[in-house]
């Protein structure tokens, strides 16, 4: 029986521990059933002498293997002992044995964990080492060895087993305490002159209490299993009735009377299951209490989602949003604050000739046309949180289309939906994404896999997390080329080295052989650019490709992107929050806010005459350090527009 991983129960918040775990358990059906079962078990153990119809150890020749009946409600065993009485007394000894192991393990583990975690120093290293030692050996082998010396005593073996199990508590408490030890509120308590004992009891014990209770339920289950195992092997104290010894007795009659095994086996299995379920329910309940904080964090990171109308509806307690309500929510302007005036989309007209790219050539055919795109995330309650709403944009060959807006404006979500690589639960809920005549909003996953890399490529924002740390940079470049272009390994390697050189990496072979953690962020971003263009895409989606880089590196990466775009004549969607990048690279820009495009048009005309309040505010924000903000905005936009 393996020890439970102490890390499974992370240090839970103090607040969570204070909420009455017991009351929550009563509300959870599984928890309630487990508690009732264990409660009955304890009661029958306590009142075994009153409940048992006969003495558990009195053998009677004429009752050998008697069937269940009036004298023996559950029958009698191979020595003619009453099965029900034995079962009741066995419950007593089995539970008491498990309790002994549990108490020994908890006392040693918790105290050692507190001391090692709170005071550290030599005790820390010694006890951690000892814990590792104890966990390295199979418990049953140690118990067997101990029994060889000490003889068959259930109490002794359970006490020894408690010592063997103590690392489970030790590691748990140790991890929680060393995490809390340097928290500011503990420092504050120390500065305020509280004694160590008081700090431990007030601030630290409350943190570890709940995880220790959960661990205790698991450990009790393991102790019962091991004890039953020992007795089943016939190594236990045969004078004491226990579930394991009953099973051992029944096992000898497995061919003639397999029924005898049912009672002890069910008792062991149900008790272990009840304890494990109890632990799981407690953990789930605690995590649910700690949940909202976590979820809020995730929303910013994974979904980068502004809460628009539909989400408002769901957060005020509406269980599900009907189709009708959803449609209404989508149609209504995304007024995130009441009373705010929502402007219609400001569209600046294209120049007469359709505009020219940075190389001076006219733009090519239309590559991508997004119409009325809406992206939403399915919520656990069945509603949909809409993060992109009524977005339309197009990209021609050779054209760079900037998507600008603050964090959470939906620009990255728009970019991901073109690739159809939205995070879990996210999907296109309305509109179309037409790419070279195909509607990507409704394409199958197989069709998308064919397009990705070959036709549409992607450069991510954060270079380091976008490389797989377990593979060399070279293999991550070679693999897609072999799959997409069907190149041999040698051809792909050659091409990868060429690409690395092309993106300005000084020693391509060395970078090719390196692991991601061995290169700098700027290098990693170049590698990702090389990977994106490796299969000659028509459309490149760059999601804030310079945000995570140093300022000096940013300029280099931007000019690399400009060169590559001109060289390969790609259409580009460039997601950014930086107007400097837009001015530098883009032909056309769409300003996004709260999941919608508020203003769109050629870069020149928007820089010359921004009309939407939000666009103007963004321009103003560039010059936050200036004194006379209002006037400077005009001057700056004019200057930028002339570039």
């Amino acid at each position, binding site marked *: *029986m*393996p*020890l439970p*991983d102490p890390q499974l129960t992370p240090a839970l918040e103090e607040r969570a521990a204070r909420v009455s775990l017991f009351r929550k358990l009563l509300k959870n059906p599984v928890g309630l059933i487990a508690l009732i079962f264990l409660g009955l078990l304890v009661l029958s153990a306590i009142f075994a002498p009153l409940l048992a119809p006969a003495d558990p150890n009195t053998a009677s020749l004429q009752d050998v293997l008697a069937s269940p009946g009036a004298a023996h409600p559950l029958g009698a065993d191979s020595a003619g002992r009453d099965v029900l009485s034995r079962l009741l007394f066995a419950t007593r000894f089995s539970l008491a044995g498990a309790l002994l192991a549990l108490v020994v393990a908890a006392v040693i583990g918790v105290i050692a964990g507190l001391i090692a975690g709170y005071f550290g120093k030599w005790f820390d290293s010694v006890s951690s080492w000892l814990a590792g*030692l104890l*966990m*390295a*050996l*199979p*418990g*049953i*082998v140690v118990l*067997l*060895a*101990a029994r*060889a*010396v*000490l003889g068959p005593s259930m109490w002794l073996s359970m006490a020894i087993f408690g010592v063997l199990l103590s690392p489970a508590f030790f590691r748990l408490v140790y991890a929680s305490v060393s995490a809390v030890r340097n928290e500011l509120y503990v420092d504050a308590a120390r500065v305020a002159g509280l004694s160590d004992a008081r700090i431990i009891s007030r601030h630290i014990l409350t943190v570890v209490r709940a995880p220790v209770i959960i661990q205790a339920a698991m450990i009790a289950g393991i102790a019962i299993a091991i004890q*039953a*195992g020992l007795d089943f*092997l*016939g*190594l236990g104290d045969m004078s004491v009735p226990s579930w394991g010894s009953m099973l051992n007795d029944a*096992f000898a009659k*497995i*061919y003639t009377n*397999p029924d005898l*095994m049912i009672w002890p086996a069910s008792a*062991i*299995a149900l008790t*272990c*299951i009840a304890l*494990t379920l109890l632990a799981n329910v407690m953990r789930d309940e605690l995590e649910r209490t700690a949940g909202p904080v976590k979820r809020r964090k995730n929303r910013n990171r994974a979904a980068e989602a502004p809460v628009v109308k539909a989400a408002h509806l769901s957060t005020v307690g509406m269980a599900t949003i009907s189709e009708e309500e959803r449609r209404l929510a989508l149609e209504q302007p995304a007024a995130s604050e009441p009373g705010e005036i929502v402007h219609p989309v400001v569209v600046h007209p294209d120049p007469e000739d359709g505009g020219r790219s940075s190389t001076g050539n006219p733009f090519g055919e239309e590559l991508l046309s997004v119409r009325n795109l809406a992206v939403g995330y399915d919520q656990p309650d069945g509603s949909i949180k809409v993060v992109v709403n009524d977005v339309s944009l197009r990209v021609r060959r050779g054209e760079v289309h900037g998507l600008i807006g603050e964090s959470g404006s939906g620009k990255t979500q728009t970019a991901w939906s073109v690739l159809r690589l939205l*995070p*879990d639960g996210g999907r296109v809920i309305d509109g179309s994404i037409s790419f070279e005549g195909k509607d990507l909003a409704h394409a199958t996953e197989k069709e998308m*896999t064919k*397009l*990705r*890399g*070959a036709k*549409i*490529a*992607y450069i*991510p924002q954060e270079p380091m*997390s*976008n*490389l*797989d*740390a*377990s*593979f060399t940079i070279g293999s991550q470049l070679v*693999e*897609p080329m072999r*799959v*997409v272009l069907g190149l041999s390994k040698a051809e792909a390697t050659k091409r990868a080295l060429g690409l690395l050189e092309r993106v300005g990496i000084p020693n391509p072979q060395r970078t090719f052989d390196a*692991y991601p*953690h061995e290169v700098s962020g700027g290098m990693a971003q170049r590698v990702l650019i090389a*990977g994106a263009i*490796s*299969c000659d895409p028509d459309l490149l989606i760059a999601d804030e490709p310079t945000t995570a880089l140093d300022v000096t590196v940013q300029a280099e990466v931007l000019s690399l992107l400009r060169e590559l775009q001109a060289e390969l004549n790609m259409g580009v969607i460039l997601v950014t929050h930086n107007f400097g990048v837009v001015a530098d690279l883009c032909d056309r820009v769409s300003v996004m806010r709260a999941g919608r495009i508020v203003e769109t048009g050629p870069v020149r005309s928007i820089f010359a005459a921004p009309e939407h309040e939000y666009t103007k505010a963004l321009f103003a924000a560039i010059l936050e350090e200036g004194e006379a903000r209002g006037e400077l905005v005009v001057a700056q936009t004019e200057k930028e527009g002339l570039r």
Partner: protein
Amino acid sequence: MLRFILRRLASGVVLIVVISTIAFALLYVGGGDIARRILGQTATAETVAQKTQQLGLNRPLYEQFVDWVSHAVVGDFGTSWFTGQEVIQAISSRVAVTLSLVIGATLISAIVAVLLGVWAARQRGWPDRLVQIISVLGFAIPGFLIALGLVIVFAINLGWFKPTGFVQFATSPSGWLSSITLPVIALAIGGIAGVAQQIRGSVIDALRQDYVRTLRSRGLSANRVIYKHVLRNAGGPALAVLAVQFVGLLGGAVIVEQVFAIPGLGQVAVTATNQGDIPLVMGLVVVTAVIVVVVNLVIDILQGFLNPKVRLS
């Protein structure tokens, strides 16, 4: 990488030394009057003294220990007090049987756990819940109960397998396979429960990583990314759990061998324990420690291959 392996090897040797020392001290000091126990209560004081003399138990403890160590390092753990067989022989003839059970169970639980864990992580919904239930039951129900259940259903009621007995591989490969099927399944179920849960968790984590999106944006299919990249990254924590499981299975094998009457280390251990055959128990403890150390070393090396950062640290 070599330094990494050497360091792990050194800490493994230290572990074996410490465990042997503690075990020796406990077994020889805690045992009380060992000769009396061997000979029984009816033996005369004279024969007991003779026996003590014969076993060398009258010497100072450190002398006995030095004697034991000097022989143990060359693989000589003495002879059994009861059968007169050499300890190393009694163990080595059985160790292969136990290892084949445990390694078989480990491999099966690894494979099944990966499939179940990935399935649960990708589908979520009911497959996820099903895997959770299997995990809870597999974890909660002791291995020997599962073994007993398998015997009753598949051997006694259905008659598909022989309930007990072991066939050497050399005698009949198919007989061998049939004789270890149920024991291996009984052992593997607990392992599957623990590892599947771990794989599920790490795959869900890994799927949320940025590089998964980037790799897929390059035209790699979801399956390819999961089975090549995600699993390799999820592999580290899963291997750590597998190492813990292996130790657990080694203990579980002791009981499962008893249920199926398989002549492995477990049987020797139970007999030696019942008799108080201390040289044999000592040998078993050391051999177990060596197995555990070797397995952990192998797992550490695998970790190094999976995760380039481990190699450097």
